[in-house]
């Protein structure tokens, strides 16, 4: 059996607090430990998800959090994988547990973000594609989201009102989520009235950048049982696959796709491949999902994910959305937490926050945003710069 138990989940609320990221991570770690009924000295392995915008402590986040909690001799790792950083930290912890090297692991990610568009880290680096795309193209992150959105409109007849409807749905889902940054009803008219940032996307179509922290306590299933939790929420699949050559989808911070001139494109494009690998590992498929948390960096991107997850055939995401299937109470609610629309992105914490939501939902503890009828299985997915992405499947 390749499952590990998610024994504890904890978050520091998302916002624009402007404080040191360590504070958020510490609060989240303590909350996750309390949720698990464990204390810091019980932790044998701590996995940090790094932030690259907070100096050296951010690059060795595992040690930063371990020090903040009080040096305990726990083994440590720190990793960076753009938006998938949190998932890779979870993967590191899971591997330790599955290898029998540790019974109890703590995963922590936290970020403090600057105002405005994400920009490349400082200094002149004319051989860094992330620097060059700003320099030579003026291509910010919303540029790429907008290119995908326009493509959906041209290929599948999506409308800007479909994109707005994603925001309206997610805003409603997150209304009472105590960890969400934006807890306010949004109407299609509100979205229409917000400024165009990158045509066809408006300000309310694009996720903000946020401060926040999230943590998980992972243990072996045996440990959880010995600890008095016979049926913990379990992590049944976790994929952090890289793309397959040729990667034919334009990705941040690319200037161009790989060429498909000599090798045909892979059967599954990158995002679909990320999800597929997690399905294989968990022995589940899209029809087994009770709900999903997807990376809605933009409203339109949430629709792409419906297809990449196999919730509907290609080109039918708008119809799925309009049917109400992805709204709480529907067949397969998407982003019951409110998603990035309500949180904004706190990069290294975000995939861990998704896992927290899966845990609370699968335990039936999500209060007014609870997915009805005792959810059994769920997936959380994300994608980030430089060929990173993750999919995580949790079951109850």
């Amino acid at each position, binding site marked *: 059996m390749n499952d590990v138990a998610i024994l504890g989940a904890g978050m520091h609320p998302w916002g624009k607090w402007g404080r040191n990221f360590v504070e958020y991570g510490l609060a989240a770690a303590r909350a996750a430990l309390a949720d698990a009924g464990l204390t810091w000295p019980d932790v044998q392995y701590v996995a940090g998800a790094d932030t690259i915008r907070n100096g050296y402590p951010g690059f060795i986040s595992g040690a930063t959090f371990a020090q903040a909690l009080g040096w305990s001799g726990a083994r440590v790792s720190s990793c960076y994988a753009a938006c998938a950083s949190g998932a890779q930290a979870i993967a590191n912890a899971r591997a330790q547990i599955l290898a029998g090297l540790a019974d109890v692991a703590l995963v922590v990610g936290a970020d403090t973000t600057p105002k*405005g*568009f994400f*920009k*490349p880290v400082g200094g*002149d680096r*004319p051989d860094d*594609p992330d*620097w*060059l*795309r*700003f*320099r*030579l*193209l*003026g*291509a*910010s992150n919303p*540029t790429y989201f*907008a*290119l*995908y*959105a*326009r*493509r959906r409109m*041209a*290929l599948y007849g999506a409308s800007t009102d479909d994109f707005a409807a994603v925001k309206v749905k997610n805003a409603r889902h997150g209304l009472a989520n105590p960890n969400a940054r934006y807890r306010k009803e949004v109407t299609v008219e509100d979205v229409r009235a917000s*400024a*165009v*940032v*990158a*045509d*066809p*996307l408006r300000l309310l179509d694009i996720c903000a950048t946020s401060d926040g922290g999230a943590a998980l306590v992972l243990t072996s299933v045996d440990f959880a049982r010995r600890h008095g939790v016979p049926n913990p929420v379990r992590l049944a699949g976790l994929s952090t696959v890289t793309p397959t*050559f*040729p990667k*034919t989808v*334009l990705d941040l911070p*690319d*200037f*161009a*796709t*790989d*060429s*498909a*001139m*000599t*090798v045909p494109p892979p059967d599954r494009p990158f995002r679909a491949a990320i999800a597929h690998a997690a399905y294989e590992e968990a022995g589940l498929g899209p029809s087994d999902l009770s709900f999903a948390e997807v990376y809605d960096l933009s409203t339109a991107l949430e629709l792409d994910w419906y297809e990449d997850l196999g919730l509907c055939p290609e080109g039918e995401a708008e119809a799925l959305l309009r049917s109400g299937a992805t709204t709480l109470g529907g067949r397969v609610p998407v982003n019951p937490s409110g998603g990035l629309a309500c949180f904004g992105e706190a990069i290294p914490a975000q995939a861990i926050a998704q896992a927290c939501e899966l845990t609370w939902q699968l335990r039936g503890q999500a209060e007014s945003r609870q997915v009805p009828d005792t959810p059994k299985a769920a997936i959380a997915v994300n994608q980030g710069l430089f060929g990173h992405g993750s999919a995580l499947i949790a079951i109850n």
Partner: protein
Amino acid sequence: MSDTQQRDTKARRPAVDGWFTAADGTTRLLGTRCASCGTPYFPRNELACRNPGCAGPKDGSELAPYAFSSRGRVWSYTDARYQPPPPYVAADPFRPFTIVAVELEAERVVVLGQAVPDVTVDDLSVGMEVELTEGVLFEDDEAVHTVWMWRPLP
């Protein structure tokens, strides 16, 4: 001296070396191509062919300079209504600009570029034919810095 005259006397140079050429009157993106498997790369890849199935030496010796097709079809497009952060060098006052993703049929790649300044999203549609040209990215005291840009075919 007018702005135009000043621009005429200033040096005109690419904002990046070796990524494009306008030498023979046609603007082309410059990259490399694997002599062993035939895969082209933009931007220039001189390290090793990245096709895992390629049986070439993969020490860079298989990669030769390659000039890409100068025409393609719009894959998607957008614009920048707000000034991007540095290292983008924006005009003062900032002028919104259009960005186009273009599919090159021969090379089977999608490549990004700004559109020429007077082209807006309203002038574009997915599938439309465009060609490469050279345009001004920014201007400073020393020079006019140029870059590749897409423009719709007449």
